């Protein structure tokens, strides 16, 4: 047992001697939380808009000043129709609002006016959102026009936002970042550190020592388990104190489920290390192979239910997807194990499968 702790100590030394690895282990989670918290958002802010005002009447002026007053748009300039294509092609504007001649007169006398929104649909997501926001502002102008007239029959909608009343993006992504960071870093670090010993020939040294294979695997895994849990604490502290998020559920349950994901990741890393002969192979598989799929299929960047069916099925194989569901329920909704036992069981099954497979592989290689 004493040797076992010595072994773990040695692994810790490897990790802590190396400043660059530390940067990855602890710097990346912090940077990611901060980026997602403060920089990455789909909300529209100061989108550059050009105005082509062929009307130049009170109607167009009022709408323009309404658009200007909103934080979402910044009007770069008034241009002529000829310049508009160039402005789009050079990326200077995202949208152009075109007022026809006699806009206000038509609106008042014919009771109908037309406004054209020209969108840069080369980024369709932004284009759709921009069009929605702009339409909202323009429609609200019509409401001000008829403020004085009391209308009969009004349906009022009383809306209540659950779980995240201020509609912060962070509630959605913090669990996602946790899933991403725990999974990727653990897989990467275990697979590379084992293959590294393989390449250096030190693994053979360990294998001829009186330890059995399981002990060696454990000694490799425990330091990363501890580091990952520590990372989790950092992420949670940042979320609470920097992003003003509230953790509603049971912390013990949260950490237990996280430990489960970490073990899944460690098993996966072990499996990769069995297959890979060199560090390069291990890195290519666990990084280039896993980065984008994990980012996209966990469900925190793009809703899984929008994806085509085959992809939805594939996403079931991504452990972080299940973890993400579990953590959202615990952390944000404050639910207990009764709400997430199914997902927990799936994750547990995955872990057992991966662990059995990699230990079997590890042993046969010894034989």
């Amino acid at each position, binding site marked *: 047992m004493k040797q076992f702790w010595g072994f773990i100590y040695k692994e810790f030394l490897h990790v802590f001697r190396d400043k660059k690895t530390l940067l990855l282990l602890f710097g990346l989670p912090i940077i990611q939380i901060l980026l997602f918290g403060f920089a990455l958002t789909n909300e529209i802010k100061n989108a550059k808009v050009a105005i082509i005002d062929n009307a130049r009447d009170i109607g167009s002026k009022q709408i323009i000043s309404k658009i200007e007053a909103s934080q979402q748009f910044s009007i770069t300039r008034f241009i002529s129709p000829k310049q508009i294509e160039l402005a789009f092609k050079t990326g200077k504007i995202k949208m152009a609002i075109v007022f026809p001649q006699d806009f206000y007169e038509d609106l008042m006398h014919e009771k109908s006016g037309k406004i054209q929104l020209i969108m840069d649909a080369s980024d369709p997501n932004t284009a759709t959102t921009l069009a929605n926001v702009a339409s909202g502002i323009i429609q609200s102008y019509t409401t001000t026009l008829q403020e004085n007239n009391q209308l009969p029959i009004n349906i009022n909608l009383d809306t*209540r936002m659950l779980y*995240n*009343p201020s509609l912060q993006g962070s509630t959605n992504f913090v669990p996602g970042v946790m899933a991403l960071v725990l999974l990727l870093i653990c897989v990467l670090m275990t697979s590379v550190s084992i293959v590294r010993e393989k390449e250096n020939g030190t693994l053979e040294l360990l294998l001829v020592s009186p330890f059995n294979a399981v002990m060696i695997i454990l000694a490799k895994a425990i330091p990363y388990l501890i580091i990952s849990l520590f990372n989790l604490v950092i992420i949670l502290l940042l979320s609470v104190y920097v992003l003003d998020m509230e953790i509603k559920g049971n912390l013990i349950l949260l950490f237990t489920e996280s430990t489960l994901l970490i073990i899944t990741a460690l098993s996966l890393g072990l499996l990769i290390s069995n297959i890979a002969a060199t560090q390069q192979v291990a890195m290519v598989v666990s990084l280039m192979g896993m980065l984008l799929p994990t980012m996209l299929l966990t469900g925190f960047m*793009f809703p899984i239910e929008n994806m085509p069916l085959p992809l939805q099925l594939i996403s079931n194989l991504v452990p972080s997807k299940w973890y993400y569901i579990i953590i959202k329920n615990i952390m944000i909704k404050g639910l207990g194990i009764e709400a997430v036992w199914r997902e927990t069981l799936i994750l547990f099954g995955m872990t057992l499968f991966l662990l059995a497979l990699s230990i079997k592989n590890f042993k046969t290689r010894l034989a």
Partner: protein
Amino acid sequence: MNTLLVLLQKEFKQIFRNTLILRMIIAMPIVQLLVMPLAADYEIKNIEIAIVDEDQTALSRQLIHHISASGYFNLVSYGANYKKALQLIEKDKAVLALQIPSNFEKDLHKEDNGGLFLAINAINGMKANVGSAYLGQIIRSFNQELRLKTTVGYALPIMPLIEIIPVNWFNPLLNYRIFMVPGILVLLVTMIGSYMCALNIVKEKEIGTIEQINVSPIKKSHFILAKLIPFWIIGQFVFTIGLFGIARLVYGIVPEGNLLIIYGFLSIYLVAILGIGLLISTYSENQQQAMSLTFFFMMIFILMGGLFTPIESMPDWAQWVASLNPVSYFIEVMRMVISKGSQWQDLKSHFVVMTLFALFFNTWALLNYKKTS
């Protein structure tokens, strides 16, 4: 010149001998490019809604019909039990729960006011926003129709209406793949370039062969060039497969603009990215360090690249950071050339910036690469 050829020969032999890595760095991007764009869809449709109809009148049923016929919503439950609807939200089975209270119709006719209650699962803020906006629109238009029907004959002040005509330039069908496929291709080429370059050089450090090179009269510029050129070619190769094999054949994306501009930019971009790999290798003692550093910076580059969230939405400091990110420039150039057909004169500044990046990273790396300690 001669020694450069000798060095290049050696690099190519080593790369082509390691068929596993070679196959992986070519196959992996292709598979991911085939699959991943399908996942990256922000468009929100089929929002799950649970409706609690406590009114059970003709009017309430009309409203429900309006909602389900709109095409935006997927009615997952219809009943009179509000608690049950809330449970559906809790289980993520529904995003919205609309409650139509009893006496809705009665109140509307008697008091000219009828209230509806909407509960929204707002964990995903965007979905919540879009869902409530769609529902608001439907209810407003339902309201308007109702008003017109019930007040026929009265002299009502007619409401002026503004018709908004959206025109989607460059991508009229709002096909998000035209945006995502080239973007993901950029990310993949970036990862391959930076990783493979950094790892390759550090591997020579780790096994000690670099000492043998350092005591020889090889110029360091030759040594570095011999490391960059093969990965530059592989980057071009993977990009070409992605652009023609996947983007064009599978997704039917045909660049509007000039291919020469794309390849011209790619050529400079690869030099810059390989320069980053090179720079990282000069700061790393072993492959694990190189990998850690590359992963750290790549993650930031990718997230700040403007592909998943627009750069314009970032706060000023973050936009400033993004302007130092080579990835964001290439994604923008791809978007501009492929879907907008932007020309050389529209992209001059991008070329200048990328050339500066390439010079900057490579000069720094060259200065930091020491044959002596």
